[in-house]
């Protein structure tokens, strides 16, 4: 089902109007019309969303239509969805950004405005340095930080996920007063590392993999509890004795009050989509991990993460 995206919106609108006419009639099984999936970000988030929606469409027998509502660090899309009908036909491709946008005061509602459907994937931040530094572990970096001047750390903007991860990691390493953050826009941190303008950078494994293979950059650690699939030789921070466990998840959610029957159907479709071989192949190519989690467990992850990021933003003085 490949409708041009521009016309998809119109199509959804037309379909909605058509079904509203028959709404009084007997309720058929969910879904009986296209489901609109709001996508909050471009890049990897968008690429996964496009594939996931295609696979879910095959499962549901109705198109799942990805509609990009980018901007404001997710605030625009979340606000749209919070105002949308809670009927199962409006879902959002969400992420930890629900916590960061709320705690930085960009949206007036928190994660409880949404019902979780399923977690789909995770991405584990990775810390890399230029190979010419000779550093091969977090201990080397700590030693260098304590010996010399402040280290310059590349991030993608204050309050971004890479910034929060950096702050938590360097705090756990005990060198948070030995680093300064340099904000880059447009994912340029790996180049800046290559050029030697910064000392270290936290980005996504997919951005470093090619350089690590070519021997230009050394990835010192990943910050999750498990290793990243594209960087199997890189030890986690915990393996290196630094107690930090940060992983970014992506999943699906619907406005609070969406009927449980609809959630069940969507949850099952998401599960089968994640199990599809094409999804596995894409996870290897793009550099994310498949991480299906059912609605209930997903809800627990969101709730505990929300407290964690709330506190972290508070420590950084960015909470509103």
């Amino acid at each position, binding site marked *: 089902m490949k409708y041009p995206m521009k016309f998809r919106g119109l199509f959804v609108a037309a379909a909605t109007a058509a079904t509203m006419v028959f709404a009084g009639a007997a309720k058929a099984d969910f879904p009986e019309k296209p489901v609109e999936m709001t996508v909050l970000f471009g890049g990897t988030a968008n690429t996964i969303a496009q594939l996931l929606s295609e696979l879910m469409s095959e499962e549901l027998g109705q198109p799942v239509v990805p509609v990009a509502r980018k901007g404001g660090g997710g605030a625009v899309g979340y606000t749209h969805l919070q105002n949308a009908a809670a009927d199962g036909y409006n879902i959002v491709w969400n992420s930890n950004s629900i916590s960061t946008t709320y705690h930085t005061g960009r949206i007036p509602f928190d994660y409880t405005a949404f019902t979780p459907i399923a977690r789909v994937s995770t991405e584990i931040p990775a810390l890399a340095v230029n190979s010419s530094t000779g550093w091969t572990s977090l201990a080397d970096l700590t030693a260098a930080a304590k010996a010399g001047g402040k280290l310059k750390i590349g991030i993608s903007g204050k309050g971004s996920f890479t910034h929060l991860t950096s702050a938590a990691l360097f705090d756990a390493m005990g060198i948070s007063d030995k680093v300064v953050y340099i904000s880059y826009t447009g994912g340029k941190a790996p180049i800046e590392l290559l050029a030697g303008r910064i000392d270290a950078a936290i980005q996504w494994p997919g951005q470093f993999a090619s350089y690590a293979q*070519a021997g230009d950059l050394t990835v010192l650690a990943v910050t999750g509890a498990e290793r990243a699939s594209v960087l199997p030789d890189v030890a986690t921070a915990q393996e290196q004795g630094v107690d930090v466990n940060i992983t970014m998840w992506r999943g699906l959610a619907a406005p609070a009050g969406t009927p449980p029957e609809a959630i069940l159907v969507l949850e099952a479709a998401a599960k089968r989509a994640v199990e599809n071989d094409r999804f596995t192949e894409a996870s290897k190519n793009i550099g994310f991990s498949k991480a299906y989690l059912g609605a209930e467990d997903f809800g627990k992850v969101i709730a505990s993460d929300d407290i964690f990021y709330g506190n972290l933003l508070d420590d950084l003085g960015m909470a509103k």
Partner: protein
Amino acid sequence: MMEHFLDAFGLAFTPMSIAAIGLGSLVGLIFGSIPGLTFTVALALALPISFSLDAVPAIGLLLGTYIGGMTGGSVSAILLGIPGTPSAAATVLDGHPMTKNGDASLALGTAVIVSVFGGIFSLVVMIVSVDLVSKVAIGFGPAEIFALVLFGFSTICGLCGRSLTKGLISGVLGLMIMTIGLDLIEGVPRMTFGSVNLLQGVNLLVAMIGLFAIPFIIEAFSEDAHLPKTPKKMANVRPELPSFRLVFRNIWLMIRCSLIGTGIGAIPGTGGAIASFLAYDHAKRFSKKPETFGKGNIEGVIAPETANNAVTGGTLIPLLSLGIPGDPATAIVLAGLMIHGLVPGPALFMNHASEVYGIYIAVVLAYMWVLGLQLLGIRLFVHVLRVPREILAVVVLVLCVIGAYSIRNSAFDIYSMAAIGVAAYVLVAVRIPITPIILGMVLGPTLENEFRTAMMLSEGKVDIFYTSPTVVVFFILAALVIGLQGLSELRAKSKTKQKVEVSDA
């Protein structure tokens, strides 16, 4: 290398891949050439389709759309004075006056031929020097990019016509509009007044549609109905293609502008618009008759169109060797590469050499398609000029509303397009040029963000802006451009003064 090339031929010359590239080129041309619709939207449509294709046809489809869009953007710029992409904004300056002079098809034909020249030229540069150029590109840190963009900004001088002050007002307006929204560096909202809609900022494409299309629509209806609608000359739709002599006479200009475009494209974070404005300024500055620019000088079409297509080859350098997309359009191409396991970076050239060469061949094929389709299309396009202006304006209005909405699926963008458009009409009425607004909007975020990142890197010391030779060179170039403009304005003023004195006597 040879065997990789042979493999690549096998990958690129399948019926599937030739068809995919052709489809991409056609869709790109259509979206690029229709005012309101933008090829970034076309690329977003093509992306999911590319998932189910093999790697080379998939990337060919995306690159074809990109190249078709980049070339098609000149069509509405020339015919209606509404650029199809920000990169074609500089083409309006002389392309549209050429239409008014009855040379529409000549301008269109020249635009497509020089576009293909620029595109292929930059591809060749990219193939032979990707390692070298990517090393140079890595050398461009925040301070260097800031200086380059500042140099680009100095070209406002050449765009503002009679009054430098009015040009600056316009450029600064563009800079100011782009500060609305979430600031990416500090992560704080600016100028949003608590509105979530303003948090997403003003989209460049939405603003571009408003700036150029809305004044066109208003003017179409405010014209006196009893006057003849279109100048006789303009309705001349005789298809006339540029002669070889005309193209050959400008070959040096084309080569210089290709180099500008390739160079700009290779530096991450810049892109087609800055290249086309720099090329336009360059052509005007080194022309024997700079005073004919803005009145329909063909060099004013050749320069920006060569340069903005030369960007397509240049931009492949950071895209393939560094994984850095130059603009939203190439970001979508990047997604297509990733899903097929072609992860950009140094390892790409080691592990997937055949696919990389296949991509090169796909670019050449895309340009062949574009050349063929566009030369056929000119015969159709020029008939647009026969359509009465009021009817055309209604069609353009509908397309603009659809186009503005589709960029971000946001109804708010329709209102912002309308508001910006009405403001643009007022500016045109008081003779403030609107092209510098686009330049300000394109360059503003880069200018600001790179400056701030540079200051963070230097920990607040300004020496980062004079210790690098590259930075100093660009600063000097910018100062030269501004100085020369000031000088010529002074001269022009003293000339008119003398005239006044003479007439007084």
